[in-house]
């Protein structure tokens, strides 16, 4: 493949977002092969987009497309309750408590809407505004959910000895 500005843009997007998007998609669909297909389709759609329209909010665009494709996939698979009741959260393999840190165990006990915004904030490093656009929540609601979740984590950490696993 030739190294053109066009391909470099996509390569840079792949480098930055391939794995975070895969984790996010796998988190929703709970199947790594399905998640890979979703993320590939996300990037194929990126190739067809007008960069001038989305380059200023690339992360937000990618996560929004990925999220929509993932929920569509879950609905098609018939594994899913309606969107509003969808359970987002515990990744395959994370159920084994021996391998999960105390922090992640606490996160897994949080409501699904709190888990999603925590993931987008702390793992994907998105802003409240970007998270609001992706999840279709208001910025103030995102702030409330993150604050509530961080306080819950803080409260549980303070009440129990911290046991971190690597």
């Amino acid at each position, binding site marked *: 493949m030739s190294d053109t500005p066009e391909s470099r*843009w996509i*390569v840079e997007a792949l480098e930055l977002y391939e794995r975070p998007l895969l984790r996010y998609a796998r988190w929703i669909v709970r199947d790594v092969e399905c998640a890979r297909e979703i993320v590939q389709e996300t990037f194929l759609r990126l190739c067809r987009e007008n960069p001038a329209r989305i380059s200023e909010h690339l992360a937000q665009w990618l996560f929004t497309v990925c999220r929509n494709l993932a929920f569509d996939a879950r609905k098609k698979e018939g594994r899913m309750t309606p969107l509003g009741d969808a359970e987002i959260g515990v990744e395959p393999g994370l159920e084994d408590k021996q391998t999960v840190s105390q922090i992640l165990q606490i996160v897994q006990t949080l409501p699904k809407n709190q888990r999603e915004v925590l993931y987008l904030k702390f793992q994907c490093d998105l802003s409240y505004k970007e998270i609001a656009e992706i999840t279709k929540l208001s910025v103030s609601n995102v702030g409330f959910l993150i604050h509530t979740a961080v306080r819950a984590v803080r409260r549980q950490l303070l009440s129990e000895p911290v046991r971190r696993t690597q």
Partner: protein
Amino acid sequence: MNIHPDDPKWTAYVLGELDADERAEIERLVESSEEARTLVEELRVAAGMLRDELASQSGRAPALLAEQRAGVLAASAGASAPAR
């Protein structure tokens, strides 16, 4: 001055999500109140631990298969470049 720990602005402050005026307001509270300093410090620790834990998970994330990545890169040859 009363501190309201339920107010989302405390975590927004710790995460750098406030505008300049809001940030200045929190900083005044932090300067004048032991309770506010304690709250901010505890939120900072919890947020830091969350970031460390969740970010560390990224490194263990799966990747696209080689043929899927190649498909994207092939499609990218026909993509437009963003205006720089």
